[in-house]
């Protein structure tokens, strides 16, 4: 086997391989480009087969020469069809190329042999003109493409140029017989280069694809690394979309994120008001990709999703590449790249889009985390401001409150002393006193709640009778519509009596507040085992289930407290919990929305004996 045979064998093998590959591709993903590629390489394969059969003398050379000539003359036209799929070729030129091809083929049968030099020149001229045009269009397409597409188009342009060379060299052999050996060598090399060019263009090996993709990915990553950490979602989207557009050579790109509240995809960059990103309902192609979590390349979106055709057309989006932006099981949304013509190598571009979508998922996750951290920080600052404000307000309220309370009590004492007291006068002053006392409790609560976590509440524990505290608290309720019942005999607990009174008072005040219709509130005290407990129960409006988990949070006022017309600072229950827990006790709530609420506080018990001894010891105070 000489060098020439080796070269042609390699070339033929390459062509046959490509034919198999494009045939497989056409079966797997039927598209016009795939069909045209099959036709083109079928013609080439035909030429190779016929030549081989002739060499094996299975066919008469006379017939085969004609058949392979026909196939050869059709090649430029078939190539033009492919180029049209790529970059678009004006209709006139397509028609012209078809005319040239069929004219050449027809002439083979009509023109008398042997062919004149002029005829051969004309046929070769027609071939070179069309194939040369294809080459020019491909070279131009190289300039406007990026990444894998650019690499593959370059290879195809090379293949096409070499095909022209092969024909030109073949023609020269006719006119310059004396250079035939050299020209044959040239022809072989050109054929091989042509085969390799087409091979790389149509079935590039994986490493080559990676190599072509690398710059785009590198550029994207370096852009991503430069993104400021405090970028707004719109800025983030803008940068990322621009980078994606650049990387895949798309016309536009969109990052769509899933809006859980509205149950649809929305543009991360709110500037996009229309186009494939404006997913006004749940049946668009991006939504489908999000649902199925599988990337999708669409050559003709309006045709594939006619229901939203106007949406795609409005944005000049004919072809779409869509990949889910997902990290683990966290689904953020989808990445969409749109173009005004189908992607030449959709599989490659889709692979790149998927890669970029993964990167974007990581970025979004990172920004989500910093967002969450900023949110927590802002919340802590807001809470501190609230604390400081409430604390200052409570301090300022104390002086006038001291005067009001003391003045009212002084008046009451003087009336009693002077004997001039009337029932309604005393009642009125009593009401003043009780409300001032209530206000005192509230300001004390505010100050307690705004104290730092480190400061404890419990001063010192001593045996205290919960029942006595309960009667005391019950006596403080001024509402005429409410009746406070105390149940239980003695129930001694080892507590800071003042603080537990504060807890019980808060719970009873709450019960009054949330039973607007009035009714009975019962405080039930009990000693059991080592524990002493009391419960405060009302038949009020109850607590909605969604509020229950947050009830003991500071400043939590219930999601709908405003609507119900109940005000409050949301610190009473927070304080109760802190005080009870500092005692080593527990506080639980149990509520039926619409029927009432029961709070249960469990504390360390004390014996009645301890209690009485303690009470005697302190009675002198």
């Amino acid at each position, binding site marked *: 086997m000489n060098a020439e045979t080796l070269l042609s064998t390699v070339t033929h093998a390459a062509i046959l391989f490509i034919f198999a590959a494009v045939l497989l591709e056409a079966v797997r993903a039927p598209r016009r480009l795939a069909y045209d590629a099959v036709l083109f390489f079928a013609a080439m394969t035909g030429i190779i087969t016929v030549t081989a059969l002739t060499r094996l003398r299975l066919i008469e050379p006379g017939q085969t020469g004609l058949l392979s000539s026909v196939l050869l003359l059709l090649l430029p036209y078939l190539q033009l069809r492919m180029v049209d799929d790529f970059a678009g070729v004006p209709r006139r030129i397509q028609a012209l190329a078809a005319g040239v091809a069929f004219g050449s083929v027809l002439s083979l049968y009509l023109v008398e042999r042997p062919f004149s030099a002029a005829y051969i020149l004309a046929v070769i001229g027609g071939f070179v003109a069309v194939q040369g045009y294809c080459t020019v269009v491909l070279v131009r397409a190289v300039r406007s493409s990026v990444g894998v597409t650019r690499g593959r188009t370059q290879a195809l342009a090379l293949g096409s140029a070499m095909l022209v060379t092969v024909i030109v060299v073949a023609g020269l052999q006719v006119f310059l017989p004396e250079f035939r050996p050299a020209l044959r060598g040239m022809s072989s090399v050109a054929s091989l280069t042509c085969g390799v060019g087409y091979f790389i263009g149509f079935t590039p090996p994986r490493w080559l694809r990676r190599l072509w993709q690398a710059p785009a990915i590198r550029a994207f990553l370096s852009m991503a690394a430069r993104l400021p950490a405090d970028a707004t979602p719109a800025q983030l989207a803008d940068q990322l979309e621009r980078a994606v557009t650049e990387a895949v050579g798309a016309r536009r790109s969109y990052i769509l994120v899933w809006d859980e509240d509205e149950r649809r995809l929305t543009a991360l960059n709110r500037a996009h008001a229309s186009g494939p990103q404006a997913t006004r309902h749940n049946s668009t192609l991006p939504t489908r990709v999000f649902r199925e979590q599988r990337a999708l390349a669409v050559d003709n979106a309006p045709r594939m999703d006619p229901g939203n055709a106007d949406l795609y057309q409005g944005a000049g989006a004919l072809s779409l590449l869509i990949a889910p932006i997902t990290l683990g099981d966290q689904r953020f949304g989808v990445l969409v790249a749109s173009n005004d013509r189908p992607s030449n190598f959709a599989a490659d571009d889709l692979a790149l889009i998927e890669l970029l979508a993964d990167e974007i998922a990581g970025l979004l996750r990172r920004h989500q985390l910093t967002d969450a951290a900023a949110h927590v920080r802002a919340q802590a600052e807001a809470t501190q401001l609230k604390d400081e404000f409430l604390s200052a307000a409570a301090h300022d309220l*104390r002086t006038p409150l*001291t*005067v009001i*309370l003391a003045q009212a*009590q002084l008046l009451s004492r003087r009336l009693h002393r002077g004997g001039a007291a009337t029932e309604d006068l005393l009642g009125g002053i009593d009401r003043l006193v009780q409300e001032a006392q209530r206000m*005192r409790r509230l300001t004390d609560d505010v100050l307690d709640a705004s104290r730092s976590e480190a400061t404890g509440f419990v001063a010192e524990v001593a045996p205290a009778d919960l029942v006595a505290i309960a009667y005391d608290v019950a006596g403080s309720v001024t509402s005429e519509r409410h009746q406070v019942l105390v149940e239980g005999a003695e129930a001694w607990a080892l507590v800071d009596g003042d603080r537990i009174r504060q807890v019980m008072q808060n719970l009873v005040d709450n019960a009054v507040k949330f039973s607007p219709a009035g009714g009975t509130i019962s405080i039930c005290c009990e000693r059991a085992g080592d524990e002493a407990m009391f419960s405060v129960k009302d038949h009020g409006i109850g607590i909605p289930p969604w509020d229950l988990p947050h009830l003991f949070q500071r400043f939590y006022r219930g999601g709908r407290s405003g609507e119900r017309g109940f005000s409050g600072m949301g610190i009473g229950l927070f304080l109760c919990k802190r005080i009870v827990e500092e005692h080593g006790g527990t506080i639980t709530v149990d509520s039926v929305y619409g029927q009432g609420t029961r709070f249960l506080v469990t504390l360390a018990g004390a014996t009645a004996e301890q209690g009485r001894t303690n009470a005697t010891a302190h009675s002198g105070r």
Partner: protein
Amino acid sequence: MPQRILVVDDERTIRELVCEVLADEGYEVIGASNGAEALSALEQNAPFSLVVLDMWMPVMNGWQFAAEIAERGISVPIVVMTAAREARHRAEEIGAIGYIGKPFDVDQFIESVETAIRSSGPALENGASFSDVTRPISKLIFAPLRHLALGTFAPRSGGAY
């Protein structure tokens, strides 16, 4: 002769009200709007049975007042009258005999004052109280300590209260 009480508070309304409450109970009451005024009242008038002392005042606050009378060897029982949550702590800080949290209930206030006067003992014939006898000893032992503590920890006047 009625017991004399000095009421020290920079808030006029509170001061006057407290004076009225105590006057109703038969005490002879004199008001002062800060520690400095209180100090001169203590030095110019006949002995007092009790000082009702607010802590947060301009010019001279409660801590400075307490340190000053200890310095000058004046012995008089003090009842601290300040924000409810801190009253007890403040009383311990300056060695007061009792405390009243603001806002207070008048009944409890009167009871605290009576308890304080009872426990500090009757004024002696010559105008000195029992505590006058123990003063040199307590001064000897506690004054340097107190001075040290006050100089280090006592808040200056003009706080947030």
